[in-house]
């Protein structure tokens, strides 16, 4: 006997298992980033020498990356919607775009933000502003990398599941999409907090 409700929704809860799993996981992620943001507030409130984000960090690059992630959130929904409409080709296109946008975000982040900062010796040990900047954006970047790996798997070898179990595959893309949205939302909070304020 298999574990029930892995693919079909349970009638009284209206959810399949993985969907409740991912929401719980995201709840715990909210607590993680909640703690990080709270620490940011506490450190900043207790500091006499805090920097103004917009003077230290590049707002145009940050804005560009924000747009990249927002667009990738749209494409990942399109990927899922394509599967719902039984169009694997379009799914591949949109998922591919999502992956490319995610990569763009990372490349921009590393090449135009992290590396120049390290060159200018704006590293975590110099000031808590940079410490929290690197920790917050670094953990976010790790989440982006995690999402990219999952998305790339579903774009490549994982997509074979479409042949054997299209419904479960569609569910998987929905789950991956929910996670990807979360990564996006974290950035949307991160950007104004660190770059603008």
């Amino acid at each position, binding site marked *: *006997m*298999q*574990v*029930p*409700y892995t693919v079909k929704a*349970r009638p009284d*809860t209206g*959810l*399949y*298992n*993985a969907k*409740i*799993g991912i929401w*719980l*996981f995201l*709840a*715990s*992620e909210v*607590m*993680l980033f*909640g*703690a*990080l943001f709270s*620490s940011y507030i*506490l*450190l900043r409130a*207790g*500091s*006499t*020498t805090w920097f103004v984000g917009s003077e230290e960090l590049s707002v145009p690059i940050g804005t560009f990356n924000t747009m990249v992630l927002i667009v990738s959130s749209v494409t990942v929904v399109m990927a899922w919607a394509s599967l719902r409409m039984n169009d694997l080709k379009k799914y591949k296109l949109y998922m591919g775009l999502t992956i490319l946008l995610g990569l763009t975000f990372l490349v921009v982040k590393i090449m135009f933000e992290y590396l120049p900062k390290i060159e200018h010796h704006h*590293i*975590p*040990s*110099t*000031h*808590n502003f940079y*410490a*929290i900047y690197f*920790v917050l954006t670094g*953990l976010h970047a790790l989440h982006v990398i995690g999402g990219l790996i999952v998305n790339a798997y579903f774009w490549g070898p994982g997509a074979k599941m479409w042949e054997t179990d299209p419904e479960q595959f569609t569910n998987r893309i929905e789950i991956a999409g929910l996670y990807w949205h979360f990564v996006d939302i974290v950035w949307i909070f991160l950007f104004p907090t660190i770059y603008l304020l």
Partner: protein
Amino acid sequence: MTEHHPHEPFWRKYIFSVDHKVIGLQYAITAMVFLLFGFCLMLIMRWNLAYPGEIVPIVGKLLSEEGMLTPDGYNSFGAMHGTIMVFLGVVPLAVGGFGNYVLPIQIGAPDMAFPKLNMASYWSFFVGGVLMLASFFMPQGTASSGWTMYAPLSIIAETGETIWLFGMVFLITSSLLGSVNFIATVIQLRTKGLTWMRLPFFVWTQFVTAFLLLLAFPPLEAAAVFQLMDRLAGTSFFLPSGLYVGTEVLNVAGGGTPLLWQHLFWFLAHPEVYVLILPAMGIVAEVLANNTRKPLWGYRSMVYSVIFLGFMSFVVWAHHMFLTGMGTTMAAFFQTTTMIISIPSVIILSALFISLWGGSIRFNTPMLFALGFLPMFGIGGLTGLPLGLASADIHLHDTYYVIGHFHYVVAPGTIFALFAGIYYWFPKVTGKKMNERLGKIHFIGSFICMNGVFSPMFIQGLAGVSRRLYDGGTTYLHAQPVLQWNEFMTMSAIGLGLFQFFFIANLFISLAKGDKASSNEWDATTLEWAAAPSPPLPHVNFEKVPNVYHGPYEYSTNGDNGSNRDFTPQHEAVKG
């Protein structure tokens, strides 16, 4: 029924298994080994408290060349005793062990909702545990800044705090995977007819516990990342400007605050206290209802209390920090919430006590341990009230009173409940009965010795003896009148250790030669006893998926369906 898993190789069946029962046992066995190890650390510490600077018998040569426990060694052992008992012993046994094994069967499920995540959870826990143990053999040694890892001490320490933090990251991952799994399982896999108010109380406690683990651990993960950055990348999250170490100002950017660590740490660690106690309450409720042969008194109020307790446990954390100078406004808030959270605990404990009234009680070993839990947890809880009041805490903070208080909650409280659970579910897991005589000796001996270890701590604590003294307070004038208790407590601790041999022997003897147990050894109503064979079938648990028709504790229902039994199993419909 086993057609999906026809010929599982050994490693698949017993090592990298996805069966919740095997994983539960893996958790339980690992955790029990850690509990024993953590207890041995404490025995060595207690020896030194009673006989400061004297050679430790048996293991002395391992500790130092002279055969004594060094002050640094004492600090390491203290930190690791706390870490191991909480994160590697009690929680993995209560949640990973009992939760994994019993919960899916009690709700009529074939397995957990995510069997592979379940396996990953165990192995992540295992790696975390190995890292913690490995630190004993590393050149820097183990962490030595207490199980709370308070900054800045933990950051300037040259010992194994880094490995501790890496170990914690694995343990946090493990508990995250586990808690997602538990919640999803309870919500999704309850069998037909098992509505929320028909869930056994044990399932409720595990359900709330899983929420605490899910939501309280991530802030510690954030804190662990900060502390790793402080130790490895030279940041100053927890280091204030102008911090003196010895005679020199520490060369860091500064601007951080040690209070931040305490807030993040206790935001986890206070809910963690309820993670320690809730599953224990669940086990005790199961055993009490079964052995009083009557329904739990106030099942609904217990359920509402446990949910309320879960919520409140997130807003009491700073009562650990009254002495940090965080301010009286904060203290007033947190002592109020602390007084409020005692209400649901008292409701649950009172309901359990009242459940005894009028029952025809069977005094078997699991019941004795459950009965032992009630007053012991009561003492632990009531002695906590003065600590929750900021003014009283000024005197009691960091004294042995605190140690006495939380050990009464966790040791003769939770650990007694865990023993009750082991004696109660052993026949289900193995199909064999445990030896009652050895079990009763184990109970009586443990009960006396536990009190011998922990009750003098209140006396010492009220006299003002600090909890962190390597020599037990011999150099302090105010400790002199209560110093003689150190030897008494050490002897009790050694006695406690000796009585555990009766338990260990009982486990192995019963496993090898125990009498065969029936599938419903205790005439219980819940599904794991009433509907599943002993031991339950691999991967599916039940021969036939049970439907549920009743609440969990339909005892004293004499002669339904023409039977002469005094209980109605949850999965049997009553005709007529």
